[in-house]
């Protein structure tokens, strides 16, 4: 257990950046985004970044391979994966979300190699929360502002400074690298620092609970609420793209003559063409089915397959949906029908 020297995280970030590709919340034109670190302190009072750090493990788009030729003379070159990264200042909800995605993309049956390699080579340094944001509700979905799930190192803010604890061996290795930026934590009590974060006020987590929705999912599925919620949906991809647990992607070929690149890129179940099939059949033809899918997936399908909610309560959907169709609103409306 260590303390960040001089009560600041900046020297630690500087030390980490010396031999690592460091990513962190940065301020860019007034937006707080998770991006490549440029030497600044962490932004003041940020809660979660606009984009989720899932981008590091599952990029918005990436080229998978390049190919050239035809049939038996096809030359395929796999696209190499970039080197290891350190993700710094990740929030507990976002770190847990990386673990949730790994349930699916890292499963033994169908492992996604590129995701897996990135997950293994990314060190997650998580900053526990000492204040809940306007739309935070992690506790209502099984998370915690002090959770170390998905993290290699935990940082707990305390009155005396930042207390650090390595969660994994990889975390320990990284901490060893930056001894110069750390002080011994004399008398620092990690248990009570974590408990302080654990206990922060989070009004929304007291107010809503998805448990009833999950249990009574048959009724929920048939509820007229979906049509009302979806009526105002603009069919954009904001909710899925800012969500730290959404992992859907699609594959695309960019062809030029006999050569080309195969890409994959995020996709969203809110887009009309997401499930569009040959012959123009669309199993989710209107906003109603698509909206229902989004919430049912996180509150029921994911629960029945993986035993936990597919939502970590970061509140980004509530921050960003321009027409108020988000997890909090959905749970609140649905609580009234179950």
């Amino acid at each position, binding site marked *: 257990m260590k303390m960040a020297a001089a009560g600041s995280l900046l020297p630690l970030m500087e030390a980490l950046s010396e031999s690592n590709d460091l990513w962190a919340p940065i301020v*860019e*034109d*007034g*937006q707080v*985004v998770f991006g490549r670190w440029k030497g600044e302190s962490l932004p003041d009072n940020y809660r979660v970044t*606009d*984009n989720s750090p899932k981008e590091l493990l599952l990029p*918005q*788009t990436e*080229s998978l391979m390049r190919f050239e030729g035809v049939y038996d003379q096809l030359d395929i070159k796999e696209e190499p994966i970039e080197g290891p990264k350190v993700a710094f200042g990740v929030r507990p909800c976002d770190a847990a979300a990386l673990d949730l995605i790994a349930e699916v993309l890292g499963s033994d049956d169908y492992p996604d190699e590129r995701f897996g390699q990135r997950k293994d080579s990314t060190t997650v340094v998580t900053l526990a929360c000492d204040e809940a944001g*306007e739309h935070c509700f992690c506790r209502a979905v099984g998370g915690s502002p002090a959770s170390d799930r998905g993290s290699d190192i935990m940082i707990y803010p305390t009155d005396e400074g930042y207390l650090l604890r390595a969660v994994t061996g990889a975390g320990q290795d990284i901490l060893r690298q930056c001894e110069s930026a750390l002080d011994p934590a004399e008398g620092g009590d990690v248990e009570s620092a974590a408990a302080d974060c654990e206990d922060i006020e989070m009004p929304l987590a007291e107010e809503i609970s998805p448990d009833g929705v999950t249990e009574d999912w048959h009724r929920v599925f048939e509820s007229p609420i979906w049509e009302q919620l979806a*009526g*105002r949906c*603009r*069919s*954009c*991809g*904001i909710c899925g*793209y*800012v969500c730290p647990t959404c992992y859907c992607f*699609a594959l*695309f070929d*960019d062809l030029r003559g006999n050569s080309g*690149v195969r*890409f994959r*890129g*995020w996709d*969203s179940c809110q887009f009309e*063409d997401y499930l569009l099939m040959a012959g123009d059949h669309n199993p989710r033809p209107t906003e109603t089915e698509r909206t229902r899918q989004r919430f049912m997936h996180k509150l029921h399908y994911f629960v029945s397959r993986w035993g936990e909610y597919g939502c970590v309560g970061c509140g980004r959907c*509530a921050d*960003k949906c*321009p*027409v*108020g*169709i*988000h997890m*909090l*609103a959905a749970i*609140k409306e649905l609580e009234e029908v179950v």
Partner: protein
Amino acid sequence: MRQLQKQLRQEAEDAFADGHVEVFIGYQEGFERARPVPVFVRDRESVQEMVLNEFSGVSLSKYLLREAERAQEDASIGIVARGCDGLGIERLLYDQCISREQLYIVGVGCPGVVDPEKAAQLCGEIPVAAEVEKQQVVLQTSSEELTVAKEEVLRDKCLKCDDPTPRIYDALLGEEIQRGPVRQNRFDGVEQLEAVSDDERYEFWVRQFDRCLRCFACRNVCPACSCVTCSLEEEEPQWLKRSTSSSEQFMFHFTRAYHVAGRCVSCGACEEVCPVGVPLMLLNEKLLKDVGELFEEPSPHLPSETEPLGEFSYDDPEGWRGEAGQS
């Protein structure tokens, strides 16, 4: 505004009672009071769900496209419209997406809409009520009352608005607020960007577009983006690749901006919905400024019969097929 809400409900109720309105597009209470959401009222009884307050400002006009498609042929669609939505409705009318006879527009003389994020910053919590006065805004939180300048708390788009009252309506709530002269500061941002070097400007846009998630919210909310199939979603040919390389991001943003050049009504909805703060209005305003200067249009964002880029004339000084003055 409380008074206006009462009037709105009355107008909507009368419209349903007359039997010619099938649906009324307005606002209802959202998850938070300071974030009302769009509502589609389909019967007289539900009219009481409608709200109209200092926070209800989400752009509504684009919903008319979908509702017009679903509506019975002779049925009308009611809609409440502040100045910006009024222009959005005009856009759809001039683009012949909907017909005037189909609409029942209840206009609002709009003093500006409070931005809940800005208000929360000022109050430390989202206020429960607000009153927009001539020069200032009174914010009401659970424990106190706070008076702040308009500039501090109204939405960005309201601070640049020249069109508080819709130009077309069937009923008007409250007083008409006269449109002022075009604001002097309207193109400040564009001019600042025009003043820097090409390289700096390029870097600026690379940085902005790099954040873009391609969620298409900007396009989906825009009343000037009314194509049935957007060219950017065509598979054959695939104009826009799914890659988010700088060149593809430029392709997306320039295509979007040029498609609405001379047609953008400057409602600001695109920028407002962007989840990552891409300053889309800077692009739109640059094109509006150019159209204004090149075609001597004092208010290029106002839809009209003879829009510089929306009309073909045999007398066009630049001719047809490159031969000046010849048809």
